[in-house]
């Protein structure tokens, strides 16, 4: 039997930053909203006293239970995709606030170059600079248009930072000052300055002082407790949906959060979305929630899968390179975030202290801030040092040449436990015709629905940008005075590990309905009352952490939905034919 609920203005899937921001904004605007979250209800109390490295970092306490549902993965079109079976191989968030709770909090605005990458690349280097088969494209929105949304999200989150000396223009300073500088960060800043770079403190959503956001929500001061990334914050000091947008939505009195509510289909009729069909995972009972507007904020994987399962939009076909749902899968994989590790004989650092986003960075080698004329790749990334706070299981780094176990390993792992630092390049990831998602022909979830299948491989672009970054990191580490420096190795091929949560694309935004699924309000071209929000909208991946951009897009979408409801419908952006089709 199916339980049919009363119609509401908006039904949202997912309670992370994407879903949470929309719920708060639409609730405040007086719209009736239902949020469906597949996970359990969680509050700050659930994260008090949980500083347990094994349970959270190594057993992935906060991640999706893969026994019900996972993804499958392969490199090329002619391979059989294998399921990603364990949480050692994949982290995706669930429960109240989703991955936006166990995130680390490193906050970057993406660059003007990111949003107009194709035009700006052609303008500076000519059309030939973009290799055959690379399907990067403009977003249909510029940085200047995004700026107010970045600003709003940072104010909601209480982002704590200082201005990037090479960054794009800002209408306001960060709402809070940067986190304190620890000795490793100081060392990094001095070294990069000596080399002529422009270091600054990583902007952080571990909040540097007690802060009340514009919605009246209070975020406490970060204690540098070190149990941060992959954990919920013990103190309500990490900005996440649980301490910000979820209570704001609740306070409006207009938003009904339903947990254990697993969305299976976007219902639709005559080209219009009519609501969401979901299952109460405690009983197995089917529910239907009708709404005037449907918004998906279920993270990249589920956003794609829900559209494919619901037969919405034309699935991308790599053979003919037509269709758009699933096109341009992208993200930061293990070929990004590579660099160098330095071992210091004469220095010991308090590496057991830290915060998820405590770090130093620089933008000299980000985006198109440096000349690519003679380089064999596009785009760039930040160079970061981070002091997350290492647990005792994590701190087992030994110089290359040390055996991985046994007597010498033990001796070195103990000696270097507080003597090694790492820096890395947060390289961008470009999109290609052969990287995409569709539905798996073999593997199914609990309900018998096909899993999402990812086809992804690396290219020379990925290997070249990684090599460049590793060399720069090594030079900086030398300047930092490390006695032994180990460079990271560049993987030949994508190895099907989906750790780190930076996966994107598939429901990408743009100004041409032939090459994009959503317009610059995250509204589906093909179904005007359906909005698909999150990293799924990125046409390619910038050279920085993604979440501020996701938060900003969510504000943009919320504004669009409100306008759509108030104006009685219609497309919110004009379709434009782009001259390029690859």
């Amino acid at each position, binding site marked *: 039997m199916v339980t049919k609920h009363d119609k509401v203005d908006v039904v949202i899937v997912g309670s992370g930053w994407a879903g949470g921001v929309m719920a708060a904004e639409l609730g405040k605007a007086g719209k009736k909203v239902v949020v469906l979250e597949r996970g359990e209800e969680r509050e700050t109390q659930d994260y008090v006293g949980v500083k347990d490295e094994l349970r959270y970092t190594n057993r992935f306490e906060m991640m999706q239970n893969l026994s019900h549902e996972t993804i499958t993965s392969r490199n090329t079109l002619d391979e059989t995709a294998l399921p990603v079976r364990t949480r050692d191989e994949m982290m995706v968030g669930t429960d109240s606030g989703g991955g936006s709770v166990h995130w680390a909090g490193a906050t970057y605005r993406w660059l003007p170059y990111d949003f107009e990458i194709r035009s700006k690349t052609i303008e500076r280097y000519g059309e030939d600079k973009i290799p055959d088969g690379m399907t990067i494209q403009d977003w249909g929105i510029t940085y200047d248009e995004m700026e107010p949304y970045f600003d709003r999200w940072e104010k909601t989150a209480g982002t704590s930072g200082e201005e990037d000396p090479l960054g794009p223009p800002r209408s306001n300073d960060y709402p809070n000052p940067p986190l304190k500088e620890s000795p490793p960060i100081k060392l990094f800043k001095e070294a990069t300055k000596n080399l002529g770079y422009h270091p600054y403190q990583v902007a952080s959503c571990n909040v540097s002082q007690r802060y009340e956001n514009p919605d009246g929500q209070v975020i406490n001061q970060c204690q540098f407790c070190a149990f941060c990334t992959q954990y919920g914050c013990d103190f309500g000091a990490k900005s996440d949906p649980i301490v910000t947008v979820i209570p704001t939505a609740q306070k409006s009195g207009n938003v009904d959060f339903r947990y254990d509510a697993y969305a299976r289909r976007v219902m639709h009729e005559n080209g219009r979305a009519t609501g969401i069909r979901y299952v109460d995972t405690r009983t197995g009972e089917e529910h239907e929630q009708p709404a005037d507007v449907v918004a998906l904020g279920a993270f990249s994987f589920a956003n794609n899968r829900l559209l494919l399962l619901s037969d919405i939009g034309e699935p991308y076909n790599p053979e003919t390179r037509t269709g758009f749902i699933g096109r341009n899968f992208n993200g930061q994989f293990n070929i990004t975030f590579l660099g160098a590790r330095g071992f210091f004989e004469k220095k010991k650092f308090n590496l057991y202290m830290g915060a998820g986003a405590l770090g130093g960075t620089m933008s000299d080698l980000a985006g198109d801030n440096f000349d690519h004329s003679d380089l064999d790749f596009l785009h760039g990334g930040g160079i970061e040092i981070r002091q997350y706070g290492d647990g*005792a299981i994590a701190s087992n780094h030994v110089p290359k040449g040390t055996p991985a*176990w046994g007597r010498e390993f*033990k001796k070195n792992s103990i000696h270097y436990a507080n003597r090694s630092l790492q820096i890395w390049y947060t390289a961008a990831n470009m999109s290609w015709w052969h990287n995409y998602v569709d539905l798996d022909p073999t593997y199914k979830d609990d309900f018998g629905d096909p899993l999402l299948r990812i086809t992804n491989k690396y290219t020379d672009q990925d290997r070249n940008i990684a090599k460049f970054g590793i060399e720069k990191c090594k030079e900086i580490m030398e300047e930092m005075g490390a006695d032994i420096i180990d460079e990271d190795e560049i993987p030949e091929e994508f190895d099907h590990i989906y750790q*780190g949560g930076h996966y994107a694309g598939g429901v990408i935004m743009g100004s041409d309905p032939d090459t994009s699924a959503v317009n610059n309000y995250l509204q589906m071209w093909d179904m005007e009352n359906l909005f698909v929000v999150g990293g799924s909208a990125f046409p390619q991946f910038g050279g920085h952490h993604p979440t501020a951009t996701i938060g900003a897009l969510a504000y943009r979408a919320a504004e669009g939905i409100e306008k759509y409801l108030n104006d009685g419908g219609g497309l919110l952006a004009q379709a434009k034919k782009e001259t390029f089709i690859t």
Partner: protein
Amino acid sequence: MTQDEEDKDTLSRRKFIKNSGLVAGGVVGGSLLGGLLTNQFTSGPKTQTKNIEDHEALQHARVFFNRKKDFDTLAAATECILPEDDLGPGAILLGVPYFIDKQLAGSWGTNAKEYMRDPFYQDEQVIDYEHKDTPQDKSGPNTSTKAPTPTPRYQTRLNRGEMFLQGVRQINEVSKEKFDDPFTKLAEEDQIEILQAFENGEVPMTGVSSITFFNFLLQMTLEGAYADPVYGGNKDMMGWKMKEYPGPRMAYLDEIDKDEFILKEPKSLREYQG
């Protein structure tokens, strides 16, 4: 305080911090804060240590490995991976074998949260996958807080418990074949040779490559040595003492920018939770 803050502020510990003006003023952090709270929440004087030790002994018995010789083989293998030396105890003294036994008896060992649906292929592609050896701390963004050991690649129908049973028995088989003695009786260098063969994926196993088993064995040995003692390893926090690791603490607000290394006596999760 606004009503909103009051509502949020239901945690007695946080209230305690706020009332004492510690966090709000940002004047006192770190050890003093930790010390105050610990005093508040730790019950009982030090003389109870003896009882605690007896109690701990009672908490260690095999609940997964039925055959003692399998458990002994496991113990010898973990000791070979993390041996006792003049820096401190090895895996056996730290309780690692019991840690692994307990882990395998629970949801980790039965793969409760893993995708375990057919088909499980056993072809070249799978073998190739199992042999990939990217360290876990290099497996993408936000992974640098993970152990720098290879990610075990999972494409087998066996759950981890079944894999370990087969694995330790196979260690013993290889040992008898090669050296005519059970693994526990071998010299360290011979034990190392056998484990290396597993690590290189050279030992035949049924349904899984030996490399996958070995990567789990390596990972779990380190976990047992350095996870909170509540899980049965890291006996008396000796693993943490070797590494000068302090265990879970509330705050380092006043110490995070200090230049010198600050050594602290470790405290356990139990002490942290009070």
